[in-house]
């Protein structure tokens, strides 16, 4: 069981959530060429280690938020509401 720290509800079983992939900044659709848009949609870093991800708490507050998760150990550092920046966050 992975425990996900929801910023609204506290730690919950990961079965309450939906995973929405790596967090990246969305380019403005009218100011980007197709190659960049495709990169944003499909090219993931998929690191073996710490990554920042978007999750949705479907069985709780029904809000999106970001967490930092280690893909090797499944350790989770923090959960924060969407739009609140973290110092270690990278854009892709």
């Amino acid at each position: 069981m992975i425990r996900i720290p929801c910023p609204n509800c506290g730690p919950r079983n990961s079965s309450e959530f939906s995973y929405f992939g790596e967090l990246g900044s969305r380019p403005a659709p009218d100011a980007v060429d197709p190659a960049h848009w495709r990169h944003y949609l499909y090219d993931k870093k998929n690191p073996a280690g710490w990554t920042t991800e978007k999750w949705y708490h479907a069985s709780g507050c029904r809000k999106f938020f970001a967490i930092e998760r280690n893909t090797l150990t499944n350790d989770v550092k923090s959960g924060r509401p969407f739009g609140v920046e973290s110092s270690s966050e990278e854009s892709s």
Partner: protein
Amino acid sequence: MVARSPIRARGPVGREHGWEVSTTARKGGLELCDLTPYSKVLVRAGVLSKAAEVLGCALGLARRAPDGTLVAGTGPGEWLLVSGAGTWPALADEIGGGDPTALTTVVDVTHGGFLIRLSGADSRRVLEKICAIDLSDGVTPDGAVFRSSVARIVCDVIRDDDGGVRSYLLHGDRSAGQYLFDAVLDAGSEFSIGISGYREKEA
């Protein structure tokens, strides 16, 4: 015309406020009761809005309004108001007024959901079998509210003790009502759970 709960009424059946309800006598001890006919109103508003101030209840907490309405902070900017069958909570009318520019929605979800009450000293042990939340008094005391998975069904859970007896209200989507009722009964069978008939709002 008669309204029916998604949960089949057991035992003798009567009518209350246009709803078909079970008139089985109150069992006492560990009991499960279908209270779906109670009025249920969903409110959405900004957490810093005038409406939130009037509702007077933060996320994760419940309180009783002067007219007996149970106000529960079920989500960020989301509240559930529960009042007696056939009534409309006075608070629901008060919150719209203050600020005409604020987006506030008030929706009657009475017929869209189920509401059941699990009461008795062993209710914690029953709920613990089907819900992963810490139900100790330190984490979820009387008046605590949370939304989580109960027997794999998303429920608003309100700890609402009844005259000093531990009690939980469970609210969720109508289509899951019968399943969840049966799942709670199944979990409670080892503690001799029983079904009690419908009763009017106790407040």
